């Protein structure tokens, strides 16, 4: 067999479209909290570990009796990037900045940073984590400069 100049391919007549249903019953207070303008984390009463993003079970000590606690949201940027080449499902979005910040409660968060140009973002910049409604009408959260 020899290689042809332009490879022949058969375009499949079958396509697969996947949309997942994500169970959030055990972290529902977090998602409800976003609608009320609040950012919640969970705290393990047994070992004291604060979890963000929130979890229903503490992997550190095995406890499942976690308590909800509201975060202030103030933090400092540890690192960031600006996504220019986007995944297929984000193709309608403008270039977006994703930052990771250390919050004053001791946990970190990853979210979009809005309201600032990438050229003006610096490691160490003060930001606040706040709830938001996405362009698709879903609850989420983002960093904004303080």
């Amino acid at each position, binding site marked *: 067999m020899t290689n042809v100049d332009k490879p022949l391919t058969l375009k499949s007549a079958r396509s697969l479209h996947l949309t997942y249903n994500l169970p959030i019953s055990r972290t529902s207070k977090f998602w409800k909290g976003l609608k009320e303008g609040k950012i919640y984390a969970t705290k393990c009463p047994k070992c004291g570990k604060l979890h963000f993003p929130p979890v229903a079970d503490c992997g550190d000590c095995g406890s499942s009796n976690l308590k909800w606690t509201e975060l202030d949201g103030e933090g400092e940027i540890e690192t960031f990037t600006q996504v220019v080449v986007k*995944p297929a499902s984000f193709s309608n979005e403008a270039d977006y900045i994703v930052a990771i910040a250390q919050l004053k409660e001791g946990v970190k968060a990853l979210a979009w940073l809005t309201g600032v140009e*990438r050229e003006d973002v610096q490691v160490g910049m003060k930001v606040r984590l706040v709830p938001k409604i996405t362009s698709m009408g879903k609850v989420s959260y983002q960093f904004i400069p303080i």
Partner: protein
Amino acid sequence: MGHSRFGDRSDVNLSELTFESVQPALEDSGLTAKQIPYVAVGSMGVWSEEPLPAVVIAEYCGLTGAGLVRCEAACASGSAAAFNAYSAIASGQLDTALVVGVEKMRQIDTPTALEIIGRAGYYLWEFENFGMTFPAYYAVHAVQHMAKYETTEEDLALVAVKNHRYGAINPLAHLQHEITVEKVLNSSVIAWPLKLYDCCPITDGTAAVVLASEDKVKELGVEDPVWIEAIGFSSDTANLSKRENYVGLEASVRASRMAYKMAGVSPKDVDVATVHDCFTIAEIMAYEDLGFCMKGEGARMVREGETEMGGRIPVNVDGGLKAKGHPIGTTGVSMLAELTKQLREEIKPKERQAPMKNYTALAHNTGGTGHYCYVTILRR
């Protein structure tokens, strides 16, 4: 060992591609497909049509009936497969096994490929609302490394230039052309500060290696075999936000220390290494995490040519993921195939044959953003 040409391999299907590594690997070992009792396949799939690639390729290559598994450790799937087969032999249950890495990533469009790889972190907390991509995961490491250690975009470009130089003389590489620092710096931004030439390409390819016990090697009369001295492994959190810092990959530190201890060697004993340079910053962090230099000195190593041919430790002289290409599940096996040839001193052209002093080589293969890591030490 066997290794296909990497690149856009739309000329062959998954099975035909795999045959290009399996058949030469079998011939090299002196075994036939029917004599292989166990096959471990490293493949992530999704971008090609077969959800059970292992069974499809086994049938095509005449391996049906052997024990069979597909291992997933993202970009380290190939090393996970190697560890799976190695463990089965080391336990005494098997005397030989075949390790296959195969990936066909170019059967779908690029945005969809980015979507699939971007989901390979913590889907709910990093992708659903924030659309992280693989370049973005490494870009956040580049930004912190640059802020803390004064690593520059030019330093990152030097990694790409070095690896393209070797890719240009590797007939199996995807990108067989040299580039310049200017070309890297002027290429389009993918995830700032990473640009097109800071990123590995989307590649099809396969590699295979046959592993055997000491007794089997004697029985087969293999002269001068290459031995797996150690396989170290580790992992890290799914959420990047649950990590201490972004200037290195802790899984690489832990896996390499485990491998050095198991093999009884130190970084200075390594004659040649392949490190997981899916992005240029990843190679600089790997130098530091693997102990080739102190933390923060990775950029200096590439600036001073310490990881070029003739330097202290030649790294990725096959072109690396950057120029050779990174067919996800194949990469770990490709590293073992390349280093086996290096240790046998069979590399052609000679310009990319590393000089051997201790006949010791190291393969560093991470999956995700250091979510998985395997470090394998080979010796002849």
